[in-house]
């Protein structure tokens, strides 16, 4: 898992700006579930809902790529409202397998950092190795359990928590620099800053009040 957590760390952006909140709350993970089986789709959907995740369930790799806007068609504007935090895909599907979907996602600069989990009813070592080598976060042998979902949630939330921590440190440093430069200026000229990641796979919105810093001796 240590290697996997590296995937979530990314170099801090140089520019800072405002990020609009997405339509899902920042605490709720949005999972894209891909499975050709009706039964399994229904099952995973409920599993995720019970675990307080937002779910979009699709029946094929092709549909998944369409949803993400990676299918080569003109990008559907509406679909980028809800950022996907995790993709869970079945391995054996007609047309595009879960492995092929994984490859396409990892090849995309926009989506390669979204963790992808492969699910399979078959416990085949070569298959597992292949998927992990291609960048899958995990390979889960079906049936998926509540504890699997909990573990994934914790892993992703922790990864984003570490991102927040890094941004807070960066922010404090920047404000220190600005503060020392602008100590002559009246408080009203200082604008509260907001931070965001410029990479599309996270939409963390952190705002702090600059006036608090000015209170420091």
């Amino acid at each position, binding site marked *: 898992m240590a290697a996997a957590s590296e995937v979530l760390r990314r170099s801090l952006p140089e520019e800072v700006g405002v990020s609009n909140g997405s339509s899902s709350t920042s605490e709720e993970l949005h999972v894209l579930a891909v499975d050709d*089986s*009706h*039964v*399994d789709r*229904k*099952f995973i959907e*409920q*599993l995720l*809902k*019970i675990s307080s995740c937002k779910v979009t369930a699709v029946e094929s790799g092709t549909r998944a790529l369409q949803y993400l806007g990676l299918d080569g068609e003109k990008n559907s504007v509406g679909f980028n409202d809800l950022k996907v935090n995790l993709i869970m895909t079945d391995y*054996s599907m007609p047309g595009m397998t879960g492995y092929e979907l994984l490859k396409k996602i990892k090849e995309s600069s926009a989506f390669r950092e979204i963790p992808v989990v492969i699910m399979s*009813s078959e416990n085949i070592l070569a298959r597992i190795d292949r998927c992990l080598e291609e960048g899958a976060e995990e390979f889960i042998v*079906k*049936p998926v*359990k*509540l504890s699997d979902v909990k573990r994934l949630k914790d892993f992703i939330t922790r990864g984003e928590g570490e991102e927040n921590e890094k941004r807070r440190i960066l922010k404090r440093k920047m404000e220190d620099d600005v503060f020392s430069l602008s100590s002559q200026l009246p408080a009203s000229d200082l604008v509260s800053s907001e931070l965001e990641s410029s990479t599309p796979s996270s939409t963390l919105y952190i705002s702090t009040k600059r006036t608090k810093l000015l209170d420091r001796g």
Partner: protein
Amino acid sequence: MDGVIQLQRQLVDYTASLFHEGFLDEQFNQLQQLQDENNPDFVVEVVSLFFEDSERLLNELAKALEQQCVDFKRIDAHVHQLKGSSSSIGAQRVQKACIAFRNYCDEQNTEGCLKCLQQVKHEYSLVKTKLETLFKLQRRVLAAGGSIPKPI
């Protein structure tokens, strides 16, 4: 009320027998755990999808085995799907029958496959009846004002 208690007792006993006889396994308990007030019909819904899928697949299998030139790869794919969905709802005996079926597919043994198809059909028909009875009992308990006990 006596009536409710009796009905609940009947439900608990019937459910236990299905597990005891191997018709259902732990996965069915998992399904029941996932049902809540926001999705009170979850188990019935997912089992209904299983019935639909299974009937479709069993038809496909029968057709495929009637062909002059039997496509074992295709048959295996169908059985794999059936095995998957039966596993997902905890229909253990159907799942086991599918495993045996796949072995005959690997051997490209038409006779064996035909026998297995009969076996899978039989197990499917049994579990379907059992589950429908289970759901009927559950409805009776609910109608009498009782609640369905959640598995431990």
